[in-house]
């Protein structure tokens, strides 16, 4: 389903959470679609099953997936709400990227245009669903 970056410093379970989240946010995994079973994913990626379990628990806690006892884990339809920490860190990242772009000579207008076109793309994606 996806590959982990085994060279990355980020803990495996964090990488798992991020990858699955990315797939959900970009609509590759659709609402109510079943996620692979813990043991299947663990064998496939050769990572510890408890780590996969932990990642699933974290995703459930953050509201991206839900689990049915005895059936498995599924993608949740609703967008999770409690994201303030993640939003904060994304905003910090964005700030850093923008200051680097300015340093490298992009004008405020160019950045603004870029942001507008990104926004348009994201909107387009949701409107078609």
């Amino acid at each position: 389903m996806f590959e982990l970056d085994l060279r990355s410093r980020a803990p495996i379970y964090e990488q798992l959470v991020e990858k699955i989240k990315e797939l959900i946010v970009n609509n590759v995994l659709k609402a109510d679609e079943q996620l692979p079973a813990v043991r299947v994913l663990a064998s496939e990626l050769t990572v510890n099953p408890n780590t996969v379990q932990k990642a699933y628990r974290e995703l459930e806690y953050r509201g991206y997936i839900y689990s049915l006892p005895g059936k498995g884990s599924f993608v949740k339809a609703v967008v999770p709400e409690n994201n303030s920490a993640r939003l904060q860190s994304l905003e910090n990242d964005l700030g850093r990227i923008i200051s680097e772009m300015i340093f490298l000579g992009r004008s405020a207008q160019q950045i603004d245009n870029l942001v507008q076109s990104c926004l348009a793309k994201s909107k387009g994606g949701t409107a078609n669903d």
Partner: protein
Amino acid sequence: MIEVNGVSKSFAALQALHDVSLSVQKGSIYGLVGSNGAGKTTLLKILAGIYKPDAGEVMIDSRPVYENNSIKMRSVFIPDYLYCFPNHNVNDLAQFHARIYPQWSQERYEKLQPVFAIDGKRRIRTLSKGMQRQLAFWMGLSVQPEVMILDEPLDGLDPVMRQKVKSLVIHDVAEKDMSVIISSHNLRELEDICDHIGILHQGKILVQQDMDDLKADIHKIQLAFSGDIPPTLLTEIPVLHQERRGSVLILIVRGAYEEITRRLQAFQPAVMDILPLTLEEIFIYEMGDNGYEIKNLIS
């Protein structure tokens, strides 16, 4: 479940293990790392029931391991140096295992044949080191153990085979709740497959923790300031290790990510990067704290 309580072991004047305690839950993979001569192999041999501890107890499923056939029947030990009978071929070895282990599964053995692709009629002595190790895993997995004790198990295996063997072991952990304790110097590899880590040094356990907690709790921070480094910085933040490379300050700090970020932001650094540590780095810094450092070798 494996439990080790206060185990000590000496060989003549050498104290190999000193009051070691650890536990491995069912369906968990425990990684044992340590300096050379730290006592890893001794500990694993005690777990396998080969050595008798001088003090303390070693239990698997709440029963002592030493001279206990019903436990040994369900556990497999793959040592760092393999021994094989002269003139045995692969099928003979399988038969030997089948006689000793009641849980031996001929079906599993045959099913795994294409994975390892070693001819059953080959004499073991003529196999290479890596192939002998593959054979050990093949036998070990066919026994369908509840406990696997692995001493430097992936040594000498090629990258494809490493991946296959890890995947097979993980499969058994997930499906059958097998417990695994594994020693290795390849920390990169342990990082992926273990959920708990114990660091052994001079016969004592230094650190023992859930892998993710271990990593979440310690950070590598790169800082640069446009002016001078604020003098109060190092007194206000508990630093495990610091290093200055030109104008960049590298700190190893223990604590929660948010807390550290908040406190460091107050000094208004021009550049601040917080990176998680790799297991290898954690190992090096923990060892450094205990006088086992990488000193500047050429001075």
